[in-house]
């Protein structure tokens, strides 16, 4: 079976004009325009099987949104090929549109002033969904996403979380084969994120939906995407199991502590208490930031030692971000190799810095 989404040596370059500021700059640009070339996507190879759920991750500016736009036909590649469900998106745009669906986190596809149900009906029309299918799909979506009370409300009156749920429903009305989610959980609270994750997971198992999700927050992907592709500066630096990544590189954790008062040697005392672990301790305006290797000590132990050593008022355990993981990958001098399905052996296992 050929992959449902495949990209080969995908490249996207942008030519940006370089304009000096002010009136003189504007005139100079008019006479002799100068441009610089920005390569947003630099030779990306993707291969996604039907039914997979893939996270497409990277720091801001890595090229995630550009890739999504290339895969959905919004942008034309500078080089390389894209194939989605046997269709080349930017060439057979309308045929491709029937197979896919896109949810943009920042923008809704609902019509702003009319009740949500009207938007759904209109989409059903636009995608030529047969009446029986529409009814059945709607029932399921309303049930799973709990859209009942929202249907009669105009989109502009919905909260961000409610709107996100409706956008997800709207995206699935025409039963697409591939669902693209571009930063879908920005600004959402934990409860809503959990619900969305559950929903997407259910759609996968029930309908064999293929999902590609971009995010710069790894917390989103947990439990949803077994496979993670990590992007940095337009190139894929990792393609394999999500668990592997957190296991290998997510060992750096950080506890942020707020202290009761301005204890002069708080850092010293904390350092002494955790001496055998050798954490990195930084002083902040309100307390301390303790970074440690979770492979050598659990967060529970660290917290316990800290509470004994310094007057802790409040603390948070920070999740590992994509930025941190990418840094780790590079520090480990990794080069990307062809992904073996679901398991990836990076060249040069990074040693913890002791």
């Amino acid at each position, binding site marked *: 079976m050929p992959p449902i989404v495949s990209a080969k040596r995908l490249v996207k370059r*942008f*030519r940006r004009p370089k304009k000096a500021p002010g009136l003189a700059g504007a005139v100079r640009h008019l006479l002799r325009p100068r441009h610089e070339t920005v390569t947003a996507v630099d030779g990306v190879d993707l291969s996604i099987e039907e039914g997979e759920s893939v996270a497409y991750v990277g720091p801001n500016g890595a090229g995630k949104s*550009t890739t999504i*736009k290339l895969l*959905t*036909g*919004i*942008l*034309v590649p500078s080089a390389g090929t894209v194939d989605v469900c046997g269709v080349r998106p*930017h060439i057979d*745009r*309308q*045929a491709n*549109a*029937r197979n*896919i*669906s*896109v949810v*943009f986190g*920042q*923008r809704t*596809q609902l*019509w*702003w*002033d*009319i009740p949500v149900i*009207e938007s759904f009906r*209109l989409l059903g*029309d*636009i*995608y*030529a969904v047969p009446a029986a299918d529409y009814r059945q799909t709607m029932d399921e979506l309303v049930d799973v996403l709990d859209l009942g009370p929202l249907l009669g409300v*105009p989109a502009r009156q919905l909260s961000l979380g409610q709107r996100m749920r409706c956008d997800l429903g709207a995206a699935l009305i025409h039963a697409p084969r591939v669902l693209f989610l571009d930063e879908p959980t920005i600004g959402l609270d934990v409860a809503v994120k959990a619900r969305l994750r559950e929903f997407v997971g259910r759609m996968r198992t029930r309908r064999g939906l293929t999902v590609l999700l971009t995010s710069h927050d790894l917390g989103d992907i947990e439990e949803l995407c077994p496979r993670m592709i990590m992007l940095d500066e337009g190139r894929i630096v990792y393609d394999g199991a999500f668990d592997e990544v957190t296991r290998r590189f997510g060992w750096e954790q950080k506890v942020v502590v707020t202290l009761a008062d301005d204890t002069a040697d708080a850092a010293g005392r904390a350092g002494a208490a955790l001496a055998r672990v050798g954490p990195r301790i930084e002083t902040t305006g309100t307390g301390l930031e303790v970074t440690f290797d979770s492979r050598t000590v659990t967060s529970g132990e660290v917290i316990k030692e800290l509470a004994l050593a310094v007057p802790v008022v409040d603390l948070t355990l920070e999740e590992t971000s994509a930025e941190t993981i990418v840094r780790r990958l590079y520090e480990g001098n990794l080069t990307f190799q062809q992904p073996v399905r679901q398991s990836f052996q990076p060249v040069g296992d990074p040693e913890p810095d002791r």
Partner: protein
Amino acid sequence: MGRLIRIFFRLQLVQLRSAMEYRADFWIGAVGAILQQLVSIVFLLTFFGHISSLGGWSLWRILVLQGIVMTADGIREMFADGVWKLRADVNDGSFDRVLVRPVPPALQQVTALASIHGIGNAGLGLVVLIIGLARSELTWHWWSLPLLVITVACGTVLNTSISFLTNMIAFWEPAAQSAFPTMIALMRDFAKFPLDVYGVAIRFVVTVLLPYGLISYYPSRLLLGIGQPPGWWAVTPMIAAVAAVLVTSVVWHRGLNRYQGVGN
């Protein structure tokens, strides 16, 4: 094809519903739009208080010209005002959505906005047109009414195309906030008066470059029986509409290619 037409009307209905949410604003918009048109009428009435005829054109005959232009544009406002949203959509990325739906992007853009207050302009235009026709002492032929209807329809298509075309600058200069499209659209006011009064330059602009004149002056000469106009002038509206649509399509495709090549 039938499906596209149905979707066109459904999208219009959506806009209509949206507009109804803001009822007071609709009335203010409608009144404002009508008042703008009224300025031209006030001028005409005053002008003809002192002049009896403008080179063979009476007040009533000129009202026919005004009526055609106003009605055609009112209808455009009601159904195809989305072209004025193109720049905003390209700039904030909403235009991406248009590319991932299985409906031709042009259709989606044109229906992105339906300024229902256009009904004021269309209504006023019809009133003015009917009054003008009634008092013009023209001879009605079997082709008079069809010609009129086709002329107005072509006028709507022409205005939509020209406004679409000028707003497509957004694909090449997305940040440009110029009022250039507004200025070009306003030039249809030239066609509200008989082209005989203008100099050669204006006549050329309004007949060849921005063929607003082909919608009002030429068919009206036939309709009202002024001078001895050749019969083929009956198709000038269609020539204008077809030419405009062709040019607009070409540039639209170029614009889409550019958007997909360059991003936003």
